[in-house]
């Protein structure tokens, strides 16, 4: 565990020194400009618009970091040969993978926490939303974090055997396709062919289902706050379980590939 933490700490430090958190400036600009413009563009819908913009920005910026850092995590270690000195130490190969994964997750968590705080500030500035709506941003941010954890595991998997460009394409494809899982099932149900129906179902279960992480959106936050409805714990629990199991599976596959690799 200590070795995993040492590698994770190093990965986090690498990300910070690579100026990854500069994306926060972009996020701050989006929030400031949208907050200033809202008074003139919306009529009493400031809460929803700022939440929509804020959550979408957090999700997309986080996803871009997860993909572009994730795809180079292992690839860069091999290309720059830093992996040689590392694996000659008393380190299991699976510890290297888990340490790298944990380091990037922590980077994403810090990034997400700062952006969520920024969204809160923007919400406080423009909206009339009560305390309930403010608190309900946290589960939404948590769900985004789960989706980023899943994207990171996929990027890491591809980075163990593919080039960064191809890994980015594969990961982005899975991220997009993973949002249309329920559409795939519906398509299977309306088709006449049993084979297509079966294929749609198989693909649905194999693809990561990112719609699990979009259950708490701006509409949900505002409505549940307005009617003082409790937070949907079932959706959060299911998303957490799904994320943990899917990531465990992807990381196991990543470790299996990495264990068999030769470092020429």
């Amino acid at each position, binding site marked *: 565990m*200590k*070795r995993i*933490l*040492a*590698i994770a*700490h*190093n990965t986090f*430090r*690498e990300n910070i*020194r*690579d100026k990854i958190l500069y994306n926060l400036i972009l996020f701050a600009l989006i929030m400031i400009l949208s907050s200033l413009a809202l008074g003139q563009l919306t009529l009493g819908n400031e809460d929803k618009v700022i939440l929509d913009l804020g959550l979408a920005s957090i999700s997309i910026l986080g996803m871009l970091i997860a993909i572009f850092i994730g795809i180079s995590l292992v690839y860069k270690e091999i290309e*720059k*040969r*830093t*992996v*040689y*000195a*590392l*694996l*000659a*130490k*008393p*380190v*299991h190969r699976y510890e290297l993978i888990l340490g790298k994964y944990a380091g990037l997750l922590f980077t994403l968590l810090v990034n997400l926490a700062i952006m969520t705080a920024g969204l809160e500030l923007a919400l406080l500035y423009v909206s009339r939303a009560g305390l309930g709506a403010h608190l309900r941003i946290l589960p939404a941010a948590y769900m985004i974090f789960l989706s980023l954890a899943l994207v990171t595991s996929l990027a890491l998997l591809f980075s163990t055997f593919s080039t960064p460009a191809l890994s980015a394409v594969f990961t982005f494809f899975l991220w997009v396709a993973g949002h249309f899982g329920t559409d795939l099932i519906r398509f299977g149900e309306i088709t006449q062919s049993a084979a297509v129906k079966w294929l749609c179902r198989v693909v649905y279960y194999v693809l990561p289902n990112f719609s699990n992480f979009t259950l708490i959106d701006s509409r949900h936050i505002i409505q549940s706050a307005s009617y003082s409805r409790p937070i949907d714990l079932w959706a959060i629990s299911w998303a957490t379980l799904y994320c943990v199991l899917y990531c465990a599976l992807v990381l196991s596959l990543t470790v299996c590939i990495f264990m*068999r690799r*030769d*470092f*020429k």
Partner: protein
Amino acid sequence: MPVVEIDHLTKDFYVGFWKKRPVRALDGLCLQVQKGEIFGFLGPNGAGKSTTLKILMHLLHPTSGEARILDRPTDSVAMHQSIGYLPENPYFYDYLTPEELLTTMGRLFGFRQPALSRKVDALLESVGLAEARKLQLRKFSKGMVQRIGIAQAIINDPEVVFLDEPMSGLDPLGRMEVRRIITSLKARGVTVFFSSHILPDVEAICDRVAILSGGKLQEVGVLEEILKAGIEGHEVILAGGTDETMDSARRFCKELRLMGDRLHLRVDNSRQLEDLLAFAFARKLELISVNPIRSSLEDYFRSAVDRKEPPDVRGKAAAGVSRNS
């Protein structure tokens, strides 16, 4: 009990679009390294030196054969606790300072603060990087990278250190510094296994050498014995001679030069040497020195590589793979 045991180690790389065509980089290598010695692993580029070291470090999986270090297999994490490794042309995280790099590496061995800080300080001092402790590695010269590479390889006070081309690309001062570090490791009882193609450095510090070519072991032996076998004659220096003495001495030797008041003579065999010394004593000449003239390790290396069988297609391809890797 040998510290490093290599038993019929073979490594094939698979190349081509479908990765079906095997090329042999290492062919049945058998070798043993004893405790406390400095072992030089020599060979031209593409000979299989780095491949061997990478198999020992468990960075490559052997196609067949076995290697053991400290009587443990190469994939043993416990064994890696007791060894150190400097890769060829090392590259470390360039956003780190040497202090941070060594601290991270120390944590992988389970060291804790404040003992780790003390160890890092001592190491930086011993490799001459104490002044640069806060400088990011991206600003390091090649010699400094090599020194921090050696420092990370010995942070755990290893029993065996593997150094892959530690002198490569260094200037004479840098090479001298690395030689000093290696000999100080030996003085502490550490076994040093290092690959190199810079022969004067090997000649200066190695106890035993192995010569590898085309993935096959060509020679292995104690350096002094190898060089002793190659004695080609003796150089004798005498003083106090006259022109007449010079003319008389010509019949005993092959070469003769007068430098100042000293006569430099070269004899080919021990019989000639005995005759020359008897002549010198009879003429009451002053004997300054008698030095054996022996072939250098470079000559030995060249002859060992030349003696090997002509490389087959697989051997050539293997050399190509190694160069490209």
